[in-house]
């Protein structure tokens, strides 16, 4: 009836595990309590959970990402604490628990923090930047969100019921196969990744069609914003490379559930093919994450240097080059698996070549800042911190691209330092810069600058303290993922690293305080014009937040910075002669219901509750058919209602119009 699920699944075997479960359950209950106290359930359901509006979906993605950032960071703190104290000792975490923590840390940060953060920012801003009312497939957009949330929910539930994977965020067989890992941990990982991966593939399709077919009249590809360019290239990568991880995880699932032999030791399995398939996705994935961050930096640096972006065309071509090349380098993740020198050399050279277009971008950003009038808004600080720190990481990357060098440091903390040195300044600083840059657009008031700056400095200093020692101790020979060690010369480095994690914690606390202070003072920092930083792209021409239809009259574009042009010509903030009715897709529960059943399906497969698998699959099927048969899932905003909303906007603008 309940498959493998029994009372033993509760984490009562360890105080720490029970604590984690208590915090998870307690946190969920607290949220439910607050919602009940605020009587906000109906509002949440009708205005948010059933929404198909890209702006709302974007915000929900970012909320998910920030919550998962907290969870993933707690994992990081626990690991740093363990390693700082575990010299010739067991520390406070037994090996199996430590293994779950490093596995969930990586899985959460990549799939449930970085991907949703990126998807959320693209969702929120890209349709505004291309001058359209919504993405091409609003309902599919909502489905992507709820599938991602279902995956995140599976990871969170693993804290309470059962255990998470101990096979790392990459899940290599044969260790992750059923013979060596018969528990539910790896299955939680597989289904969280598979379900959210489907969501990501669909988002990629949605964004591609939106950017290719829904741009405002006059907006040629070379007139798009840099962020939209990077969103397009990242979306192309999403569509074409996520299938690889679907195959990798799918085949692993077949091995585990159906006794197949894709990656088993015996019976004709080939476990090296898993690494091959996984990294065909895995390498492009990190470019999926970093390219939109580069796009954000392009916009932020230009805006806060009060200068036109330098070298727009080279940035566009560099982005496309990076995207294409990223699909040709994947073997560098397994140089040491045993391929011949020729194979290693080809992929090593390809890896180095990717650094070139990235370097082009760095020069473009520097030259944009040169002779600009810099405004040190926190987003600009994140950008400058990124440029310096990311370049260091890039250099260690070029070093790692040399196979013989990689043989010495593969899977040491040197590697761990390298990829954090790319992802934290590259991806995370970029998204935090975007978060602080576009927050006023989303909510109508600015974030507190002082606390933003504090957060930045803590993150920057904390990052260096946490990861520079890892380069050094990696060169001294320390492997990654170690729960205990016996070389006393390593410990001082690990203690500095732990200190760095604490400093980053201060950065995260600063962000939370920033949010509280900004909400408290929102009337003082209100964005009444929609253009708090004198931006040039179309999103700044709307109110903050924008109306549901984005633009009462769809813009026509003749320039790379259409809004700045309009401001210069005096054509900005013009009232149209009349308004026309606007059709808007209706809210629907179908997407969140689909996500809910996806969660149940995943949970049921993990615990071998087969009847529930069938039931939830049928339920998902029926939901999709019912929704797809609906030909008129939209309502019309009358011209009068549009006028009312627009009149309020012009009233807020005061003397501008």
């Amino acid at each position: 009836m309940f498959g493998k699920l029994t009372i033993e699944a509760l984490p009562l075997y360890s105080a720490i595990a029970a604590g984690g479960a208590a915090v998870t359950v307690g946190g969920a209950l607290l949220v439910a309590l607050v919602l009940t106290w605020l009587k906000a359930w109906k509002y949440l359901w009708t205005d948010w959970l059933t929404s198909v509006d890209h702006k709302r979906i974007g915000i929900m993605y970012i909320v998910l990402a920030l919550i998962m950032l907290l969870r993933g960071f707690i994992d990081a703190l626990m690991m740093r604490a363990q390693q700082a104290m575990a010299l010739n000792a067991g520390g406070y975490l037994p090996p199996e628990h430590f293994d779950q923590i490093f596995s969930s840390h990586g899985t959460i940060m990549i799939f449930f923090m970085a991907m949703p953060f990126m998807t959320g920012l693209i969702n929120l801003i890209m349709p505004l930047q291309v001058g359209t009312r919504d993405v091409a497939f609003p309902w599919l957009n909502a489905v992507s969100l709820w599938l991602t949330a279902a995956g995140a929910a599976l990871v969170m539930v693993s804290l309470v019921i059962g255990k998470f994977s101990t096979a790392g965020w990459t899940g290599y067989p044969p260790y992750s196969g059923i013979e060596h890992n018969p528990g539910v941990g790896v299955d939680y990982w597989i289904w969280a990744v598979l379900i959210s991966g489907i969501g990501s593939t669909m988002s990629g399709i949605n964004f591609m069609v939106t950017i290719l077919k829904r741009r405002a009249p006059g907006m040629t590809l070379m007139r798009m914003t840099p962020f939209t360019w990077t969103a397009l290239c990242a979306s192309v990568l999403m569509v074409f490379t996520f299938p690889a991880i679907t195959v990798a995880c799918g085949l692993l699932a077949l091995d585990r559930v159906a006794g197949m032999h894709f990656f088993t030791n015996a019976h004709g399995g080939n476990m090296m093919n898993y690494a091959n398939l996984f990294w065909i996705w895995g390498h492009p994935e990190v470019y999926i994450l970093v390219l939109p961050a580069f796009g954000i930096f392009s916009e932020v640096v230009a805006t806060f240097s009060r200068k036109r972006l330098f070298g727009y065309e080279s940035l566009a071509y560099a982005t496309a080059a990076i995207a294409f090349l990223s699909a040709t380098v994947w073997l560098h993740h397994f140089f040491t698996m045993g391929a011949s020198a020729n194979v290693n050399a080809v992929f090593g050279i390809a890896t180095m070549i990717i650094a070139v277009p990235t370097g082009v971008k760095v020069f473009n950003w520097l030259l944009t800042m040169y002779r600009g009038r810099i405004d040190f808004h926190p987003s600009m600080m994140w950008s400058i911190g990124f440029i310096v720190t990311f370049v260091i990481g890039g250099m260690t990357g070029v070093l790692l691209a040399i196979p013989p060098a990689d043989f010495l440091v593969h899977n040491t903390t040197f590697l761990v330092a390298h990829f954090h040195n790319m992802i934290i300044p590259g991806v995370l600083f970029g998204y935090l810069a975007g978060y602080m840059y576009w927050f006023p657009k989303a909510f109508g008031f600015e974030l507190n600058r002082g606390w933003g700056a504090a957060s930045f400095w803590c993150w920057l200093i904390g990052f260096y303290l946490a990861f520079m020692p890892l380069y050094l101790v990696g060169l001294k020979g320390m492997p990654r993922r170690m729960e205990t060690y016996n070389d006393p010369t390593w410990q001082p480095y690990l203690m500095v690293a732990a200190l760095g994690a604490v400093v980053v914690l201060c950065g995260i606390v600063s962000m939370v305080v920033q949010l509280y202070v900004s909400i408290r003072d929102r009337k003082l920092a209100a964005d009444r014009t929609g253009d708090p930083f004198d931006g040039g792209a179309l999103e700044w021409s709307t109110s903050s937040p924008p109306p549901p239809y984005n633009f009462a009259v769809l813009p026509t574009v003749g320039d790379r910075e259409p809004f700045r042009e309009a401001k210069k010509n005096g054509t900005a903030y013009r009232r149209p002669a009349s308004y026309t009715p606007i059709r808007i897709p209706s809210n629907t529960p179908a997407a969140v219901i689909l996500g809910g059943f996806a969660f149940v399906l995943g949970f049921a497969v993990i615990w071998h509750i087969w009847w529930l698998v069938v039931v939830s699959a049928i339920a998902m099927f029926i939901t999709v058919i019912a929704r797809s048969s609906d030909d008129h899932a939209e309502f019309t905003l009358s011209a009068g209602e549009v006028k009312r909303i627009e009149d309020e906007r012009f009233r807020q603008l005061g003397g501008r119009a």
Partner: protein
Amino acid sequence: MSEHEREETETQEQRNLGFWLYLMSDAVIFALLFATYAIMIRGTDGGPTGKQLFDLNNAALETVLLLVSSTTFGFASLSARTGNRGGAIGWLAVTFLLGVGFVFLEVREFAGMIAVGAGPDRSGFLSAFFTLVGTHGVHVTMGLLWILIMSAQIVLKGLTAPVVSRLYRLGLFWHFLDIAWVGIFSIVYLPGLL
């Protein structure tokens, strides 16, 4: 063209591009399953090989069924485009029956192999075979369900613009599956029986 008609056309173009991109991502999945199959051909673990298991006549019959069904679907599309309800439903029914025939032959083939101990859990080679060919078969089955749903929609709503446009996307799907089958008999069955 009125404003409304222009928006409708744009919406359909976007849906067609979106569906086409989905098919491209599916093509990558199939390509990687093909690659995995090729990598695992020798992984028979001393067990049954393709030469011993595959039946040329069965593969030929499946090929005929699928190819004819692609053609009859084309006839259904033509009927739909000229507003011929009866023709559309009729040719969809023929396509459906041919597709059912294909799935029946494939299930029988799989059952036969499992009965002689050559199931997907016997060896890596067989895991790859069953997954590649089986994934195609599952897609065909989904297509058959979709044909039923489209037939119902034609009966209930008639050949409206949204219905015809959905039928077009089903056509893309169905023809794509026939292309995948060309790959399957060319990479799995024919070389296996050589």
